[in-house]
């Protein structure tokens, strides 16, 4: 039984880790201060895992996601504001890394969309409702 267990670990090893390095500290551990951990968690949920397909670093098994989690936790623990950490990451990886689109000319239509849709819908339906009691 013991041998088989060892064999199993041996076989499974490559799939268990992307590299031989142990995961960074804070990759899978929470910060002791619950308020800082909550801040870090909220930020991690808004950062894209760059090697995954459509996952945030808060919910990915990839090694790189683990490294980024460690980085976020370290910086938050060192007293940095979440927005500073986000800007630092965007400066390195581009807007692609943040799931919260920036408010820039490129994204104005995106942020204006809800209002445009409500107004357009109301305009299309205006004739149906104008009649007050006669």
């Amino acid at each position, binding site marked *: 039984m013991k041998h088989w267990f060892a064999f199993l670990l041996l076989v499974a090893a490559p799939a268990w880790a992307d590299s031989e390095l142990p995961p960074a500290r804070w990759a899978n551990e929470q910060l002791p201060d619950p308020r800082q951990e909550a801040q870090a968690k909220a930020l991690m949920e808004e950062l894209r895992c760059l090697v995954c397909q459509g996952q945030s670093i808060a919910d990915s*098994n990839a090694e790189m996601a683990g490294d980024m989690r460690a980085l976020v936790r370290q910086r938050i623990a060192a007293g940095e504001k979440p927005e500073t950490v986000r800007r630092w990451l965007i400066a390195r990886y581009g807007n692609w890394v943040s799931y919260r689109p920036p408010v820039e000319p490129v994204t104005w239509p995106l942020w204006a969309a809800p209002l445009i849709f409500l107004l357009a819908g109301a305009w299309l339906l205006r004739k149906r409702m104008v009649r007050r009691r006669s």
Partner: protein
Amino acid sequence: MIAEAGLAALWLAAALAALQLALACGLGGDQGRRISTVRALALSQGLLTLFAFGALIFLFLRSDMSVLLVFENSHSQKPWLYKFAGTWGNHEGSMLLWVAVLAVAGAIVALFERRLGERTLSAALGAQAALALGFFAFLLFASNPFERLSPAPLDGRGLNPLLQDPGLAFHPPTLYLGYVGLSVAFSLAVGGLVRSEVGPAIARAMRPWVLGAWILLTLGITAGSYWAYYELGWGGWWFWDPVENASLMPWLAATALLHSINVLAARGGLRAWTMMLALIAFSLSMIGTFLVRSGILTSVHAFAVDPTRGTFILCLLALYIGGALTLFAVRIAHVKEGAPFEIVSREGGLVANNLLLSAILGIVFVGTLYPLIAEASSGEKLSVGAPYFNSVASPLALLLAGLMLIAPQLKWRRDAAPILPRLAPGLLVALAVLITSFILAPQIGWLPRLGLSIGAALLPASLLPLFGRSLRRTPLAVWGMALAHFGVAVAILGMASDSAFTEEKLAVARLGDRIEIGPWLVEFRDVTPVAGPNWSALEAELRASRGLGVTILEPQSRFFAEPPTTTNEAAIDTSWNGQLYAVLGEQDGQGRWQLRLWWKPFVTLIWLGGILIALGGTLALLGRLTRERRQRILGEEAFA
């Protein structure tokens, strides 16, 4: 032999679809438009495609590796359920399923539809045949599921292990039935526009299809969300992933259509708007399929990526959607609007519902496609994810839920009675919950707080339309509406509770360590190897206790050899007030294991709500069908 027979059946069905389209366009004169001709064509098309799909299932069950598709997506060692489900767990098979449903839906309409004039019906079936023809061509020219492989290999490559899950086996067919069910609404709208017969009869013919498709989409999305929740192993249940959005968009359109169709059926109003929604709903189903199948958006669901075929589907989309919208623009002037109504009326409420749903739909649409547009136009790579959708769509969704407190109680056309007494029960509950939440949980965000208040208010308010009626004589459809709205309340409470009260513990633990989470004390007792039919795993034993209750959780880290993959199988303990969720991660160099634990109060309400919504839809569907049947029998008796 079976594979060739399947392929031949597909070609034959495609030829029949072409013939049916030609006849509907008038090439066969009045003789060709006769309903008996159309009926025979539609029926044989449906049976042939069904046969082709059956043939593919048979090949998968027999593990016939001389068929390329089986070789690439199956393995002889797989449990039979996954061989069966493997039929649609890939691009070609799922497209064949899509076409099969499309053709069978056409056959059912041809056989059973009695509400419409003959000419309108045959025009609608012509539209259905046109849809089918495009997808037949796509299958035959760009993704032949029956392609042979010579020499036949000894065994296959296996199915993506993430997909080896009983829940996921039936997730795609449910969604596809929903997507394609909407094709009938599309075709009926085309038929109605072509023949200028847009009125209550079209709405009544559409309604069961829209309801049925909507029920299946609701179930499919609910099941998909639960699958992502327990299979991906991080406790999330909705990721605003493009593929999730692709299924959400047709659902939103179908929900809006479902409500506006009632205005058309009951009052003859909102004709143009309803036709447009019917065209848009199925267009979004096609766009969803395009997004998923073309691989244009990379996402966690990208197991079916295939960019080369994208162009083909894109052309089909341009043809169908462009054609339908052009037809709408040309013919809509011929459609007369029905009776007007005041703002405070059932119609007014339904219009507001449609407005909000359409705005949410637009937001999801823009948010999903914006990164593509931005990259194509300015080269800038953007991500639009949960923060955008949550901050923009959620307030509108809560507004919509707020509207549900009163709108279902309003009278048709004009409601002059005071609103406040009818709104009072809901408002009082909302206020009570709001105040209690400020006292007991001051730290939670405003969105979950509002969600809790409005969700709680909607529990009693959704049942008010039943109040003061003779319950035995209340139509089944009204019961269905109340139940579905109650389900919305339940789901909102689950979502709000999950985002407000979830506790998370990520631990690096040794055997014997104890971890406190929520009301639970979890002891890490053991890790043992276990083996399954085509995987081996490490299984943790966690003893969780609270008060006198003890439960054992056994999360696994599974290793699949074919293809080599590791998956985390979460262990979930469900109790009446929430779920304890445990995942076993990797071991580090010092013999410590990663453990991820979540305590999620009332999270189950999310999916319970989804099921209640679908159940409400089912009641409404049964009510509509039995009532129409009874009326038809009465009508025939009166005539005799």
